C-alpha cells in the first residue's frame, strides 16, 4: 500500500480532485480509501486499478456528503511550486490547462486525468466506470480536442 501511495500519490490526489474539486476533500477521499485498503483480506489482482477505483468512490461519497459547489480545482491540479528555472511559458500553460480542464464535462475531465496522468488504460477506466471502452475513448478524445481548442485560442 505504501508503494502504491509513493508511486501514485499525486495521481490519486489529482483523480480525487477531478471529482471533488477541493484539495481537502480529495485528501479525505484518499485517506478513506487507504483505510479501507488496510482491511482487505486479499490483495486484489490489480491493486493499482483497485486503489484508483476506491479513491474515486470515496471522492464521490465526499462530494455527496459535503455537497459543496465551489470548485477550487484550478488552484490545485498542477504543482504551483515552480522553481526559479521554470519557464514562465510553462507556468502559463499550467494555469490555462487547469482552466481548460474545468471547461470539460465531468466524464471528460476524469477520463483525461485517469488516462493521461494516472496511466490507467481505457479498459481499466471502462471497468471502473462500468462503461464500454469505446465510450471512455470517446470521452478522452473529445476532452482532449476541447482542451486543445481552448488553449490555442
Amino acid at each position, binding site marked *: 500500500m505504501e508503494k502504491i501511495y509513493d508511486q501514485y500519490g*499525486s495521481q490519486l490526489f*489529482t483523480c480525487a480532485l477531478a471529482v471533488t474539486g477541493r484539495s481537502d476533500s480529495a485528501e479525505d477521499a484518499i485517506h478513506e480509501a487507504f483505510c479501507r485498503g488496510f*482491511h482487505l483480506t486479499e490483495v486484489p489482482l490489480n491493486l493499482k486499478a483497485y486503489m484508483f477505483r476506491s479513491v474515486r468512490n470515496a471522492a464521490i461519497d465526499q462530494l455527496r456528503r459535503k455537497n459543496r459547489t465551489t470548485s477550487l480545482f484550478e488552484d490545485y491540479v498542477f504543482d504551483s511550486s515552480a522553481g526559479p528555472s521554470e519557464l514562465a511559458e510553462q507556468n502559463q500553460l499550467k494555469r490555462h490547462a487547469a482552466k481548460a480542464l474545468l471547461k470539460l464535462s465531468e466524464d471528460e475531465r476524469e477520463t483525461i486525468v485517469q488516462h493521461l496522468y494516472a496511466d490507467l488504460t481505457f479498459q481499466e477506466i471502462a471497468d471502473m466506470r462500468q462503461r464500454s471502452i469505446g465510450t471512455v475513448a470517446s470521452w478522452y478524445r473529445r476532452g482532449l480536442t476541447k482542451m486543445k481548442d481552448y488553449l490555442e485560442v
Partner: protein
Amino acid sequence: MDMDDFEAQLKRLPLARPSEGFRRRIFGDKPGGSWFVGLFSRRIPVGWAAAFALAAGIAGMSDSQMWGGGAAAPLQPVVNVQIIRSPSDRNLFDFTVPAKDFMPGELTVNVQAPKEI
C-alpha cells in the same frame, strides 16, 4: 501542433501533491503501525523458529530439572468415593439441621494408583 504533441505537452506538467504530512496521516492510521504490533508481525527465519521449538521441547522433556526443581514430587493416588444409594429421603449431606444418623447403604471406594512415567 498535432494531438500527440499536445498530449505529450500536457503530460509533462507536474501534478500537485497532497499537503505536507498527509502521508503520515494515512500510514499513521494503518493497523499494525504501532511498534508493539510491529514487533510481533516481523518475519522470523524458519531456522530460528525450528531451533527455538526444539530447545523448548528438550526443556519440557527433561523432567523440569533445568529449572532447579530437583526431584519431582511423589505422585498421589486418586481416590473416588461413590455413594450408590441413600435409603431415606433426607438429604444426608444437609448439615444445616442437627441430626444423628447412621448412613446405611452401599459405599464404594475406588483407589487408583497413578502410573509412573
